[in-house]
């Protein structure tokens, strides 16, 4: 998988809710192959106190238009500046980075669990799986309806379920309280999750108990994104691994934190 550094044209910057934006980037050349779960590292030029690039999940890819989109949640100074960029600006991007999820088999029944901006790789995965939508179950969690990210393009990809902590959308509580999760977890061939660490740890612990195949997508602070700084390490059963190159997707069997 060849990585590239390119100046890409921002063609769209759409606010999805109070703190999430979708940025669509256009390449002049053919896009490299991009797998769900991979990410990009974006240079943010307009603020001197922002020194390093910022990693963002790839939300969607349109190969014909040579475009891909990012889900950007405002978490700090870097992401905040990025969301102010206007269509027509050029952005330096290193991509595609990371390993990506294991693509499910044709007959697999899969559960995708996304929390917060962790929905981004889940939705891309649901789109490219090529599975019977009936076999794809997408469980999205948020604090409240206000935090929910509605990406309607994906509605045809599977069965959608929602949880919110305040009950303002879908089931009240965490994703682990949802009936689909509570009653059917062991019935899925593959479980994939991305979101806040407590959510992923809870899912991983349950999946480990039931023996289910489960992959999680981690997010650690990184400087380079392509495996040279060795800053973004995660403890695994075989020692420290870089989230940017060995991950961000890990099989829970290889992690130590869910045990």
């Amino acid at each position, binding site marked *: 998988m060849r990585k590239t*550094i390119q100046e890409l044209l921002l063609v769209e910057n759409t606010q999805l809710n109070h703190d999430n934006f979708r940025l669509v980037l256009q390449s002049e050349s053919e896009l490299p192959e991009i797998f769900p779960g991979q990410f990009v590292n974006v*240079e943010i030029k307009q603020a001197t106190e922002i020194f*390093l690039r910022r990693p963002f999940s790839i939300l969607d890819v349109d190969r014909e238009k040579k475009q891909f989109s990012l889900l950007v949640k405002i978490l700090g100074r870097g992401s905040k500046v990025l969301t102010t960029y206007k269509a027509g600006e050029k952005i330096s991007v290193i991509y595609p980075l990371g390993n990506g999820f294991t693509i499910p088999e044709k007959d697999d029944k899969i559960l995708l669990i996304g929390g917060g901006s962790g929905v981004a790789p889940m939705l891309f995965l649901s789109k490219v799986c090529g599975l019977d939508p009936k076999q794809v179950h997408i469980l999205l969690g948020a604090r409240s309806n206000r935090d929910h990210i509605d990406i309607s393009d994906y509605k045809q990809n599977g069965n959608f379920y929602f949880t919110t902590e305040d009950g303002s959308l879908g089931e009240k509580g965490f994703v682990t309280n949802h009936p689909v999760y509570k009653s059917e977890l062991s019935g899925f061939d593959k479980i994939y999750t991305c979101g806040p660490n407590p959510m992923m740890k809870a899912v991983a612990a349950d999946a480990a108990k039931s023996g289910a195949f489960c992959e999680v997508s981690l997010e650690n602070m990184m400087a380079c994104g392509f495996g*040279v*700084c060795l800053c973004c390490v995660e403890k695994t059963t075989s020692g420290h691994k870089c989230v940017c190159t060995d991950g961000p997707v890990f099989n829970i069997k290889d992690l130590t934190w869910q045990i």
Partner: protein
Amino acid sequence: MADLGVNIKDLYFKNPVLTASGTCGFGQEIADFVDLEKLGGVVMKGTTLKHREGNNYPRMAETPSGMLNAVGLQNKGVDNFVKNIYPTIKDVNSNFIVNVNGSTIEEYVELTERINELDKIPAIELNISCPNVKEGGMAFGVSCPSAEAVVKAVRAVYHKPLIVKLSPNVTNIAEIARAVEGQGADSVSLVNTFLGMAINAETRKPVLSTITGGLSGPAIKPIALRMVWQVAQAVKVPVIGMGGIMNATDAIEFMLAGATAVQVGTAIFIDPTIPVQIVDGINEYLERHQFSSVKEIIGAMQV
């Protein structure tokens, strides 16, 4: 095209731009982005005798115009280097220099002997300045007697060019440079990172797992430049300058201060093509100022 070639002892570099240790892996990690043969050299990830897991996460904190790291020399050890890394670089036409680290003098010597067996490794950079390991590392580089002892022991077994990487976390870096020159160092490279720290005010906790770490990036450039200038006047051996070099102008400033070559480090995290851009930028500068050789700007600061 101006002549960009420089020498460290009898080792020829086609241009004076190298990558700094710990910022380009073992070279292949940045090969998607750059042609390694366009670089004067690649100083590879710090290598130790045995596998090292490095420090716990978090290992990085962004700071204004720079970053702190506390990687702690994570690497798979020299056996892995010889078996898996060396075959991938030995046919690339550049100078691949191994950054050598030890906890004891005996470890430095044993590791050096192992590297000495590899024909295509033309030099080592003896790291006596890593701020992120408890034992060894910077401890050797902060006093003249300990720096002299480790350089003397390594010099006795290593007859190719020996570069010694110095710590800026000392009162008088020129004194340390003279001390290692006195024991046979063929070159000194400076500076390694400055000891620093970051605190998360919200949690009231240190950002790094190790509390302190090494500061790099443009934030340190003026201090590094001053140290390179001081050391270049204190020693006769070539100086390799580094510390916050982000572009060709930065690199030229280090050479004007007395550096024969430069290493580019943290900038690679932001743009791995920067070292090659710097090579082109130095050439453009030389032509614009009508220098025929890069050697003409070494130490050419006009006071």
